[in-house]
């Protein structure tokens, strides 16, 4: 038996026997999150620091899946009384849970917390629903444009091409696919949902109107944006359908050096840099009609069902995770934007800004970044959008027709939810 195997066996046996016998901390906070791979390591670092500073609190952190998986699992958990105590909630999808009283109102906690003054305005606002604070920001992002310098050079771009409009991007992607397609390299990764929303905003539209909560899925500029995105896959064939059926595939292919351009959250910065090194370039999102990017990311909420002492402990952790020190570790370890005004002064953050070119692109985009609305229907809309996108991107259904039908069903759903 190899030593590794032996250790593994011993470990698994001991976990079997010791599930209940682990050292009893005074309060355990069960925490669901969405961070895997490198980002999970950065989170673990913050948790370790917190537990060292608060030996009476244990954070029992579970990786659940992506934001959508978390929302799904949380909703299923409510009738079963098996929700955790604290949970990462993406900024557009927690409205439903705030609305239904699943999330605890944290306004009182935040008002009494010096953290409130330390948070950037844009970050603090993502946690507010109907005037109350339901989540405390943790990871904030905007989508950015990543490209692989090596691939662009080999495709014949001796100088950096313009990447301002849809046409610019398509031109570059086409040239890459033509020149390097035979090596299995494609021009651009099919945009993920966050990037899709961003590209719609670039086209001077939105999915839901931020002021009136009106559904804009069938607005002419939204349709035009989706037509362009879908054409990348099925008409121009500069994006692989692999990234349509499984969003992460596009990102994985970019990391593997198989894709020239990727639109994705700045939260992928550190891992992209790890994968591509100096070949990685980061640029702002295109501005097809206007310059406008969505503010994404997530915050941590506390479940109303948690016991009071657990709520207090969970809030302590949430506040610690958003502190300047933790936020700097998080920023440097992942590429998510700083949310705490003090983070930039921390040595870890200063070091990252100096040595990691492009990590600041998302921050610079903040001047034209916009928060997004989060009425309850957004949760349903985002869960449903994946299938609609697949049908459009794979050329199965007409874009305008699909979006019109989707807009109608979203309006129906919105009405249903407000009953």
């Amino acid at each position, binding site marked *: 038996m190899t030593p590794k195997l032996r250790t593994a066996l011993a470990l698994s046996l001991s976990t079997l026997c010791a599930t209940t016998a682990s050292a009893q901390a005074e309060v355990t906070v069960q925490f669901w999150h969405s961070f895997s791979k490198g980002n999970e390591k950065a989170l673990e670092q913050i948790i370790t620091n917190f537990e060292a500073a608060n030996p009476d609190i244990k954070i029992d952190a579970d990786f659940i899946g992506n934001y959508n998986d978390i929302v799904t699992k949380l909703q299923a958990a409510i009738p079963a009384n098996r929700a955790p105590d604290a949970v990462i909630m993406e900024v557009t999808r927690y409205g439903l849970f705030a609305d239904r009283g699943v999330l605890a109102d944290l306004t009182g906690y935040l008002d009494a917390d010096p953290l409130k003054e330390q948070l950037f305005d844009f970050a603090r606002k993502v946690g507010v629903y109907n005037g109350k604070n339901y989540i405390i920001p943790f990871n904030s992002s905007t989508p950015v444009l990543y490209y692989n310098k090596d691939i662009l050079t080999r495709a014949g771009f001796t100088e950096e091409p313009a990447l301002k409009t849809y046409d610019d991007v398509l031109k570059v992607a086409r040239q890459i696919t033509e020149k390097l397609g035979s090596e299995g390299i494609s021009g651009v990764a099919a945009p993920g949902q966050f990037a899709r929303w961003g590209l719609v905003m670039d086209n001077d539209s939105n999915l839901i109107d931020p002021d009136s909560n009106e559904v804009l899925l069938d607005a002419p500029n939204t349709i035009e944006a989706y037509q362009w995105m879908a054409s990348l896959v099925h008409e121009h064939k500069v994006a692989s*359908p692999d990234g349509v059926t499984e969003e992460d595939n596009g990102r994985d292919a970019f990391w593997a050096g198989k894709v020239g351009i990727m639109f994705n959250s700045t939260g992928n910065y550190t891992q992209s840099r790890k994968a591509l090194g100096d070949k990685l370039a980061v640029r702002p999102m295109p501005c097809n009609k206007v310059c406008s990017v969505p503010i994404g990311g997530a915050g941590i909420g506390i479940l109303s069902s948690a016991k009071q002492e657990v709520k207090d402990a969970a809030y302590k952790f949430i506040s610690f995770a958003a502190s300047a020190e933790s936020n700097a570790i998080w920023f440097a370890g992942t590429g998510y934007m700083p949310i705490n005004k003090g983070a930039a002064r921390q040595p870890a953050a200063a070091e990252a800004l100096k040595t990691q070119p492009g990590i600041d692109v998302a921050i610079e985009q903040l001047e034209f970044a916009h928060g997004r609305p989060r009425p309850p229907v957004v949760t349903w809309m985002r869960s449903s959008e994946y*299938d609609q996108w697949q049908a459009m991107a794979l050329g*199965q259904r007409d874009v305008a027709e699909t979006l019109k039908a989707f807009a109608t069903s979203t309006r129906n759903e919105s009405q249903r939810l407000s009953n």
Partner: protein
Amino acid sequence: MPRKFTPYLFVLPLIAFIVVFTYIPILTSLNLSVREWDFLSPDKPFVGFENYRLLLDSHEFWNSLRVTAIFAFVSVPIRLVLALLIASFLVRETLSARILRGALFLPFVTSTVSIAVIFSWVFSTDYGMANALLRAIGGEKVPWLQDPAIALWVLILVNTWKQLGYDVIIYIAGLQAISNELYDAAAVDGGGRLHVFRRVTVPLVMPTTYFLLVISVIEAFQIFTIVNVMTHGGPAGATDMLVNMLYRTGFTLFDIGKGSALAVLLFAILITLAWIKARVIGRKVHYEA
């Protein structure tokens, strides 16, 4: 003499489980299907047949029904023809027949999730076995599970691979029941092998064929695991079978009313199929005997 209530004591535990986990749920589903609920709200308002109307109005439902029907009515006949041919070769008690029967039967008892994972690899675009073989004979790589026109056929293939052994075993049992004298008689009549197969084997295993046909179609209407692991119903709904849609509507979109309405419709479809089975098989078996 045993006392009067003895038999009730013996059947009670089983009946209790059946009532709680099978019969009451049917009533619950019926009830939920005329209500609106998302697991979160305290109330479940009554909405009449609205959920059924929305469902029958939706592109999704008809797509799902179409995909499921194609899956069932294409894959089942292919399987049965293959299985009968193979079974007529493997019915002999020889070592080679034993080996092949074992090999064919193995996938049937293997975990469906494992099979789905293994075939996800076989048909993965970049590292898969299927594309490696294609390239070896000079072909282009095919995006098996990413192309809406192909993905359903891949699932049909995988399900056939898994189920074929079961059909073969059942056919063998059916064939063994046919007496050798009948074969001999047919051979004496001067029929060749093909003739005997068509005139003797096929008609005499008809009851087995009907049995397999109906249970396979019913099973095909309930397929979920392969879909959930390999495609999630994608690409673009091309493999969105009914149970997958039910799972998605109920447990990812949390439209509990619509999900229950879909469950009721699926139930109605399957009961109809089962009823046809009872009618047709009942008659056929009677007729053949």
